[in-house]
């Protein structure tokens, strides 16, 4: 009996080790490859240790796609998206959770509908809309359409529903305005959920690909995913540059994940599992 259990545990560890290697190797390879030249990359045997071409690759990446600028674009877009979208989502979630107003049902319906309807349906009409107001190749066209994020609204609504009404009522009696009550009394109490919302909105903003791909035309306005994609389409692909670019594109998300694992998991679940 005991021997069988020990064997089972060993097997379990073996599975975990194998899974860990599979998930880790592409990252390690990405990091090692970013420091070699393309020909060294595909050399047999492949390099196992970091090489000395990191700065070479970086300067070439800067030359071909203006990587510094592209990173700043992505960072700016993701940050603006995160701040605005979180504010909009938190406010709307609070309104839906704590007030009864005309059109509330309709709004909730719209929120749920956007969750179910894939945004690809909106691609063509949104594109034409942006074209007709002359917003193609602008940052606001990238950010604005996806600010009202149904996932975020529902996540926030869920966390506000359980918030005690008595606290809001007493703030009201003390003469605090509705917005101030929200900002000063309610929001600080849902900080963990707010953290999850922020992380997830940032990830979504940083990762978004198809919409920026459609909207942005000038290379100096590209986001990181769009710029990386143009590199893969060339006839002579700069593979080591690509690997460095991928590494740098992934680092901010990895840092966020390692710093805020708990919120990351909470965001994944988003109240959905609670059922």
């Amino acid at each position, binding site marked *: 009996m005991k021997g069988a259990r020990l064997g089972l545990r060993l097997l379990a560890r073996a599975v975990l080790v194998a899974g860990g290697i599979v998930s880790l190797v592409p990252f390690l390879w*990405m990091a090692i490859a970013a420091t070699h030249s393309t020909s060294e990359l595909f050399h047999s045997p492949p390099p196992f240790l970091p090489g000395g071409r990191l700065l070479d690759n970086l300067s070439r990446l800067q030359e071909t796609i203006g990587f510094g600028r592209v990173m700043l674009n992505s960072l700016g877009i993701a940050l603006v998206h995160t701040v605005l979208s979180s504010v909009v989502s938190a406010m*709307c979630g609070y309104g839906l959770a704590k007030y*009864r107003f005309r059109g509330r049902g309709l709004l909730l319906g719209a929120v749920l509908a956007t969750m179910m309807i894939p945004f690809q*349906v909106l691609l063509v009409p949104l594109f034409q809309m942006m074209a007709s107001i002359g917003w193609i190749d602008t940052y606001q066209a990238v950010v604005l359409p996806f600010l009202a994020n149904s996932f975020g609204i529902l996540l926030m609504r869920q966390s506000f529903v359980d918030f005690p009404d008595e606290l809001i009522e007493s703030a009201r009696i003390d003469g605090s305005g509705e917005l101030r009550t929200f900002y000063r009394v309610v929001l600080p109490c849902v900080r963990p959920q707010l953290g999850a919302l922020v992380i997830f909105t940032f990830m979504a903003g940083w990762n978004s690909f198809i919409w920026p791909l459609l909207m942005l035309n000038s290379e100096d306005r590209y986001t990181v995913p769009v710029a990386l994609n143009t590199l893969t389409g060339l006839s002579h692909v700069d593979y080591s540059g690509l690997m460095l670019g991928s590494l740098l594109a992934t680092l901010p998300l990895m840092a966020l*994940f390692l710093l805020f694992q708990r919120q990351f998991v909470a965001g994944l679940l988003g109240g959905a599992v609670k059922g």
Partner: protein
Amino acid sequence: MAVLDTRTGPGTTSARPVPGRRPRRPRRRLRRTGWIFAAPAAALFALFFAYPLGASVLQSFTSEDAGAVHWVGLDQYRRMFHDTAFLKSLANTGLILVVQVPVMIGLALVLAVLLNQSWLRFRGTWRALHFLPAVTTLVAYAVVFQVLLKTDGGLVNQIVGVFGIGPVDWLNDPTWARISLILTLTWRWTGYNAVILLAGLQAIGKDQYEAAAIDGAGTFTTYTRVVLPQLRPVLLFCVVTSTIGTLQLFDENYVLTRGGPDDATLTPVVYLYKVGFQQFDFGYAAAIAWVVVALIAAISALQYLLFGRERRR
């Protein structure tokens, strides 16, 4: 759910000598203040969701010829039945749904159960390690797999070459391209689903395992009879979200293979993108989009019917 303005029970401030008049005023005030919070989202929804949604429905019944828009009824929808590329994109999606999703959910379940074991040391580290793929930038990981799977000199071919296999033409042969896409998707999303399943497992109390042990249930019986039934809603959530993700697949296969070779990794959304933004056939693109919506709705409903019954009881 508690709603502020309907609270008129004893103990609240609205208990007044003249009931019926007093509560009305705050209620009207709150009617308007609710909108202060909802207005930004509502405006954004109206502008960037409701309007384009309506426009897209109408557009799917039209065709554009030399700048002139015609009403063509259901023609755009009829076209799809004879469009081999579109049918192929559906078949590819079906293959991923039937092969990749069950394999991935199965692996995620195994991982989640292992990571939930109390005897496992450094559980936090193990978890982080397995969830790492879930935090890569979508485009970046597709790029990395493109380099890993390169036919001449790619790391994967060098590794299988050691065992005397290959070189395999991972991305340029139709069958291998499908396999590559499936492997790539599994690498990225297994950890993601494992996180969700792990959270579901942790919601099941320790006492349930103990109770099962007292009743003489072995490990296997405990999992099939006690744990899995309770995990059912979470599993259903994973299956439904993975299905929706598969039906909306774009980033991975667009970056990895552009839908090729010979449309072997074409998905409806990549096809929609090509039709709409490379051929500028907007009416047809809109119709394709609505077929994707219909498929998502139908398959999700089916999954709820088949696996969701237990919840209602």
